[in-house]
């Protein structure tokens, strides 16, 4: 039996907004799960239902074998990190870290030791006597992580903890979070809209959109084998290219690939790294933008079949307006249904 289980979980707000439309998810002990999706997809609502901050309209949440759906947040023994830190502004960093321990039976000495330990692990020992408002965002979020961890809860919940930080701090803190999670082996549910964060942190990614789970899988599963067009486009930077195709007699235009599909329209998906420049290739496009990114470049092309992006080594630049021919890796073309975007082959 899994450590955390969401069963047909649903949330409908009084104003009629259906934020979460019946999701099922099983999380194993010690797993790092990332809920990934655009704003408004229901990922934060799901997290808050697990925390007990929102009441589920329907469905069940099981934690460590017990039904916690109707329990108050304080009865669930979880720790949570908020996007905007939610540190107590009138308390020093030390008092913020001590706060969750005040409600445990720990002796004063033990509490102090716990706080010192977690502060050392997060590298905030020198900040203990300061107040949150005096600290930059990165440090505030470190302390917020510490506050969620110091009680050693059985579940760690994080709501876009890196969302307001700049890229340097984000990368640092990502490593801190991963290291702490591995060290304590605490089961973690992490919400983000940043697919790169999801890819690097997660044991499994749960892609959400419009209140439903589109796909749950390891980063490479989600990336290489997306279950639908939404996941294909959302995961990856940039997302998967989408080419409208037509199957006639087992051959798919415009790429001329053999496919085992009935006749009719189809949407083909190709990752940017599986497109290659080839003047004899089946597609031609005009360069819109050549994005140099250091280790590689993204070439944006306008083709008759739409806008395509090709990932190239950082060689010579293309000028806007240049014509480029391209071919695809047949082994890496995926087929999706045009209507609901479901994966076909």
């Amino acid at each position, binding site marked *: 039996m899994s450590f955390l289980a969401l069963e047909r979980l649903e949330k409908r707000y009084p104003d009629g907004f259906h934020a979460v439309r019946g999701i099922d998810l099983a999380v194993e002990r010690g797993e790092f799960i990332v809920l990934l999706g655009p704003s408004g997809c229901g990922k934060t609502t799901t997290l808050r239902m697990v*925390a*007990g*901050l929102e009441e589920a309209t329907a469905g069940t949440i099981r934690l460590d074998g017990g039904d916690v759906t109707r329990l*108050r*947040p*304080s*009865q*669930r*023994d*979880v*720790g*949570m990190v*908020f996007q*905007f830190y*939610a540190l*107590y*502004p*009138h*308390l020093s960093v030390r008092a913020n870290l001590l*706060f*969750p321990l*005040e*409600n*445990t039976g720990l002796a004063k000495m033990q509490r102090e030791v716990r706080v010192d330990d977690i502060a050392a692990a997060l590298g905030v020992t020198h900040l203990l006597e*300061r*107040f*949150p*408002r*005096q600290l930059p965002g990165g440090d505030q979020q470190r302390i917020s992580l510490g*506050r969620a961890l110091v*009680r050693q809860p059985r579940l760690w919940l994080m709501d876009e903890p890196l969302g307001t930080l700049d890229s340097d701090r984000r990368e640092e803190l990502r490593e801190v979070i991963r290291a702490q999670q591995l060290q304590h082996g605490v089961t973690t549910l992490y919400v983000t809209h940043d697919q790169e964060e999801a890819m690097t942190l997660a044991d499994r990614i749960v892609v959400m959109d419009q209140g439903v789970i589109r796909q749950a899988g390891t980063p490479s599963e989600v990336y290489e084998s997306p279950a639908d067009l939404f996941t294909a486009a959302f995961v990856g930077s940039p997302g998967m290219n989408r080419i409208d195709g037509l199957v006639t007699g087992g051959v798919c235009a415009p790429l001329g690939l053999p496919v085992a599909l009935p006749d009719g329209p189809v949407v083909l998906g190709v990752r940017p790294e599986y497109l290659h420049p080839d003047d004899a290739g089946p597609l031609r496009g005009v360069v819109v933008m050549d994005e140099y990114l250091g280790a590689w470049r993204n070439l944006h092309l306008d083709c008759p079949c739409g806008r395509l992006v090709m990932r190239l080594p950082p060689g010579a630049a293309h000028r806007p307006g240049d014509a480029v021919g391209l071919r695809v890796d047949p082994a890496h073309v995926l087929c999706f249904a045009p209507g609901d975007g479901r994966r076909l082959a």
Partner: protein
Amino acid sequence: MAGMPGTGGTRMLAWSFVGPALLLLIAFNLFPLAWNIVLSFTNADLSGGTWEWVGGRNYATIFSDKSFAAKYGAALRTTALFTVLAVAIELALGFALALALRRDFRGKTPLLAVLLLPMMLSPAVMGLFWNLILEGTYGPLNQILGLAGLSQPAWRTEFKLLCLLLVDVWMWTPFMMLIALAGLNAIPAQLYEAAEIDRTPAWRVFARITLPLCAPLLGLAVLLRATDALKQFDLVMAITGPNDQATQTVSALLYQTTFANQKVGLGAAYAIVVLVGVIAVATLFTRYLDWMAARQGREG
């Protein structure tokens, strides 16, 4: 150049925003105050006739003349007692009501309207009307007490300061409640969510989060109410008149001295004495508020 920060132009612009208000405040506060200081060394009266310098005689009267000193001291004590009691009751009651009103429920809006109404009424007039309510024989309060078989005290002759307190509390508790409610509403919900997740019991949430976060605002509300209570005049005039020993506040005594007895110079000297005291207390209090704000690492 208009709008260029850090230049002479900006300084001009900045002062043109704050200047008019400051000028007006100076003209109507510092100027009369200075004049008052001058008057306090004279024997001026209200008729606007001639006056002459009397040196520190007015001050000497206030501090050492037997009959006067007792009177002035009593007025100060009455005012202090009234202020402390009124503000303390209003703070406790107002904050308790705000806590009770914090969550939404059906009928909250009309209830709030009723609760806030006393604050909008004129103290001078409502003080007058309370005379009817508190009247010993036909006053509704005693009639109700009588119907309930309880004793019917002569409120307006035996418990004058209590009457004053009662009406002040009735009128100004809503003000404290309003400010406290605004403060409670402004506390970010996430702080409560974090505390709830950390298994903090309700009383500790109140003691460690709600109270300290509201404290600076409550402090300011106390300051505003206290400054009003120290000036208490309207209710005294309406309920007992300015010359009743039981309720003679500083303002009432000032009125009595300056207008009824027409001793402008003496009144001016007393006003200066009172002001020095009030400003000392208020300065201490605002320093305390500053200190509280600084403790939270908040600038400005």
